[in-house]
């Protein structure tokens, strides 16, 4: 099957008005085959790794939150709050993993973590799950992927602003939640979510709004800024470290190609980042085989590494490549970094690393 020709489709033809589903042909994604028995082992579900990981997240929030409250003097309080906020910012990978329902075998545990992390991330979780399914179907197809982070040419002002999630969290995530709660789904929601689920989404959005209103009421009732700091301010103050690891997932790589090895980065990270990021540094592996839970992605990486471009040794190397590519796209919007596939490397051994 021919990959989708996204740029050839006219706007009128993109969406089925009856279902809101995209009418683009699905790309025929290239997958590196994994032996069936191995894949069955990798796909295996358990509650234990997810509970340990989610428990670590909540535990760190409780510890750093408590230290923020009791610490003195102010500089120490600020440091504890920054630690709390930085951990808090990693609600996004939890939301992401639970979109896929992979981290837990027990569904209700997954859905509890899904909704809690959605509240912390300022994302209504059900709408975001549908949009994320679209991202997996049309990863980095410029006309349709609902999660493309950068325009061509890129707007660096917005990118810098969004390093603290100010634009995304307020405009793209929180505002649609409020709108959905009181006035129904926004256009993006209508495009991706079938009508049968709209009512469920409206009630979920109302629950989110009720939670945020409750936080404000609590702050007023106990005459304290802490609820506001821990739920709202932390979302922005603590975002940079998460932005540092997540911005490099796709940006600067090729668009409109049906091979995740060409449009997605796998980046080696240290154990602390992998803990907070739920191993999403193995991003090619996640896209290629999304049924594999976070705790098996490192093993999956070992299975497909020989058939993939070299993983980036650290985040600095990935950022260097991405920023150079985005900078070049200011004047040359069609420019992308090309990731060499193993057969290309075999043909030209000097091509083991490619940058802009």
């Amino acid at each position, binding site marked *: 099957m021919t990959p989708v020709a996204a740029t050839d489709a006219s706007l009128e033809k993109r969406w089925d008005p009856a279902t809101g589903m995209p009418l683009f042909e699905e790309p025929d994604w290239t997958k590196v085959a994994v032996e069936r028995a191995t*894949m*069955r082992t990798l796909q295996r579900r358990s509650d234990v790794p997810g509970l340990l990981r989610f428990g670590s997240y909540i535990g760190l929030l409780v510890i750093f939150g408590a230290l923020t409250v009791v610490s003195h003097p102010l500089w120490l309080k600020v440091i504890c709050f920054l630690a709390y906020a930085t951990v808090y910012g990693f609600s996004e990978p939890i939301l992401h993993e639970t*979109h896929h329902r992979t981290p837990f075998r027990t*569904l209700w545990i997954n859905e509890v973590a899904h909704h809690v992390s959605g509240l912390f991330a300022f994302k209504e979780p059900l709408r975001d799950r549908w949009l994320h*399914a679209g991202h997996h*179907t049309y990863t980095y197809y410029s006309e349709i992927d609902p999660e493309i982070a950068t325009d061509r040419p890129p707007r660096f002002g917005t990118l810098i602003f969004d390093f603290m999630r100010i634009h995304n969290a307020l405009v793209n995530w929180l505002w649609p939640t409020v709108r959905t709660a009181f006035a129904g789904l926004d256009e993006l929601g209508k495009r991706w979510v079938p009508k049968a*689920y709209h009512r469920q989404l409206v009630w979920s959005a109302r629950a989110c709004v009720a939670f945020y209103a409750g936080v404000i009421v609590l702050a007023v009732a106990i005459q304290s800024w802490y609820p506001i700091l821990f739920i709202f301010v932390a979302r922005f103050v603590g975002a940079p470290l998460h932005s540092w690891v997540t911005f490099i997932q796709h940006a600067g790589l090729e668009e409109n190609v049906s091979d995740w090895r060409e449009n997605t980065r796998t980046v080696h990270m240290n154990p602390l980042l992998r803990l907070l990021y739920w191993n999403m540094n193995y991003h090619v592996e996640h896209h290629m085989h*999304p*049924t594999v839970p976070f705790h098996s992605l490192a093993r999956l990486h070992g299975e497909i590494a020989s058939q993939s471009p070299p993983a980036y040794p650290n985040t600095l190397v990935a950022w260097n490549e991405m920023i150079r590519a985005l900078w070049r796209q200011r004047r040359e919007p069609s420019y992308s970094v090309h990731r060499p596939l193993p057969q290309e490397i075999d043909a030209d051994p000097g091509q083991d690393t490619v940058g802009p």
Partner: protein
Amino acid sequence: MTWVAVAGAHEIEEEDVIEVTVGERVLAIYRTREGYFATDGICTHQRAHLAEGLVIGNVIECPKHQGRFDLRDGAPKGPPASVALCTYPVKLSDGRVHVEI
């Protein structure tokens, strides 16, 4: 409607799924603790072979977006699955799985 032998009963491990093709029809054949079941082999949401997915109890999880279906009656059990799978009667005879199509 005819019964068609599609696989040996022991070709499918418990809590697993295989894909078979009958004519032009792609089927997913499941084995769970409750027995054997058969559904259409392609997800109703977007193009994906369910046999590459995961069987969890009586649920088949699509490999592409992790939409879920009850494999006994095809009912969607989790977005983005929203349209039921077609299911088929199954019986065991002479050590083989038969599907009525």
